[in-house]
């Protein structure tokens, strides 16, 4: 970093560059670490398509959601379309873009990342088709493919992270999230194998609940929170803000809660340990909400942009999830309300919290990637658009409004056990997700 280096001029695929004097000498700048455009974008485009599919299947399968049996194969299919197809797909793509920039290391192997995409895509499609058609006995095959794909991802991530010299707060959250992901897929694969071999010594339902919490709070949750500690102050120009002051205790509380919930659910330790773990998680989440509010309070960029609107709504989803979690512990499992609480808990966490937050971040990441490759080479030589100019704001706000309203309707319908509201909610969710997907994919096609 100390020696001046002349970096090559990036080619502009859309328009030839005007001839200029010799390029500037740039110093204090290492060689470019950013991943190529195509690596993260393929994950994001696929993730957006899965978001539409997930809500579409939630609409189609919604009559089965109010039955007496909670964990039906169809519900499992919708859950995995959401968690794996949409959220994890986007998360992996975002990490391929985010890690080099924030942790200042190049991705170990982009080729592995591209191979992994196809393995993962095939695994998600196979698993959700087997689940949706109720052929759970053969789920181990696509589950094995998923384990292979996630294994490649984790290997690539581990080799990349091994080169990190300075660990910012966000890096620790990413590390904990990736560790959780490794455990999530291990438990998930064991569950799939168990359907055929029946070797697990404990209740299958206990494994499912432990697996789900590890995925939602440990993998996706810690990742979303950690990333927000970097992106929110950066985009909002939050000053003064010390990310470590509460970010560190929150990290300790939440990782402890993730471990505690996993063990308590897996071993069926009972209500008291669950309440204890919930309390630790609730304190961590409460502090995080406070810290997030602080980031916004001290922001110098006053307008709340579309991404922040998604994030604020997502935070509302997180707080609702926390309350529903408490209700799930306190309401007896034998009551009619309990399965509806479970469904609302899953919808609030995956759709309301992680889902809205993820879509909001995509409104930053996708335009940034496209802008960097299409327009950055012209900056300083000719007028270039701003990131927000790359997509119609009206369509974006319509998509967000539709998603927020529809998730609220769907959650109210689930809690009330009122099918028309659930169907209206998931129908409108499909529309909102489709508007968002079309808007962002149009940016990619510019």
């Amino acid at each position, binding site marked *: 970093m100390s020696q001046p280096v002349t970096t090559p001029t990036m080619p502009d695929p859309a328009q030839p560059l005007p001839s200029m004097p*010799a390029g*500037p000498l*740039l110093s204090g700048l290492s060689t470019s670490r950013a991943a190529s455009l195509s690596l993260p974008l393929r994950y994001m485009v696929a993730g957006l398509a899965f978001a539409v599919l997930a809500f579409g299947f939630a609409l189609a399968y919604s009559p089965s959601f109010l039955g007496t049996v909670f964990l039906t194969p169809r519900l499992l299919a919708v859950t995995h379309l959401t968690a794996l197809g949409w959220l994890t797909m986007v998360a992996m793509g975002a990490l391929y873009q985010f890690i080099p920039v924030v942790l200042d290391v190049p991705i170990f192997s982009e080729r592995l990342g591209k191979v992994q995409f196809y393995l993962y895509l095939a695994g998600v499609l196979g698993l959700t088709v087997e689940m949706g058609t109720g052929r759970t006995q053969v789920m181990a095959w696509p589950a094995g493919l998923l384990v292979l794909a996630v294994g490649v991802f984790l290997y690539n991530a581990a080799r990349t992270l091994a080169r990190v010299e300075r660990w910012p707060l966000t890096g620790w959250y990413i590390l904990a999230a990736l560790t959780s992901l490794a455990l999530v897929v291990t438990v998930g694969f064991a569950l799939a194998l168990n359907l055929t071999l029946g070797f697990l010594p404990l209740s299958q339902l206990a494994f499912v609940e432990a697996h789900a919490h590890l995925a939602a709070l440990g993998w996706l949750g810690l990742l979303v929170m950690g990333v927000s500690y970097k992106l929110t102050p950066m985009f909002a120009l939050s000053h003064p803000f010390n990310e470590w002051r509460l970010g560190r205790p929150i990290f300790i509380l939440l990782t402890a809660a993730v471990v505690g919930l996993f063990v308590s659910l897996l071993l069926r330790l009972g209500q008291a340990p669950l309440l204890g773990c919930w309390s630790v998680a609730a304190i961590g989440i409460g502090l995080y909400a406070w810290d997030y509010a602080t980031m916004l309070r001290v922001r110098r960029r006053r307008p709340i942009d579309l991404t922040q609107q998604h994030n604020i709504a997502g935070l509302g989803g997180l707080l609702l999830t926390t309350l529903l979690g408490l209700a799930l512990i306190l309401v007896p499992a034998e009551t009619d309300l309990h399965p509806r609480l479970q469904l609302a808990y899953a919808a609030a966490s995956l759709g309301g919290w992680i889902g809205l937050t993820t879509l909001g971040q995509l409104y930053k990441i996708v335009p940034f990637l496209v802008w960097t490759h299409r327009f*950055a080479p012209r900056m*300083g030589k000719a007028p270039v658009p701003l990131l927000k100019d790359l997509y119609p704001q009206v369509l974006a706000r319509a998509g967000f409004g539709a998603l927020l309203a529809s998730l609220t309707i769907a959650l109210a319908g689930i809690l009330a056990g009122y099918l028309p509201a659930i169907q209206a909610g998931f129908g409108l969710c499909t529309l909102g997700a489709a508007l968002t997907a079309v808007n962002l994919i149009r940016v990619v096609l510019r």
Partner: protein
Amino acid sequence: MIDQDALMAALKNVYDPELGVNVVDLGLIYDVEQHGGKITVAMTMTTPGCPLHESMLRGVGDALNGVPGVERVEVRLVWDPVWTPERITLAGRKALGWAA
């Protein structure tokens, strides 16, 4: 001697594409030195790990290269002193909706 106003005007054409404020009004330009036809710029970013830093450094260099008389541009990225929002000009503050 190259007109300093022409250099600053060129720099004002380089915008942070996320914030919509140019690098001068954002207070990112710490120093612009001339030695004959060679220009040396010291600039910073609002935060380390800013994903736009490479594009912005290059944009600053290319903008100055377009000013008549400029033969060579060196852009140095510096982190000392640390950027704070107090460096944003009044025009920049207005653009960000922050009038205080």
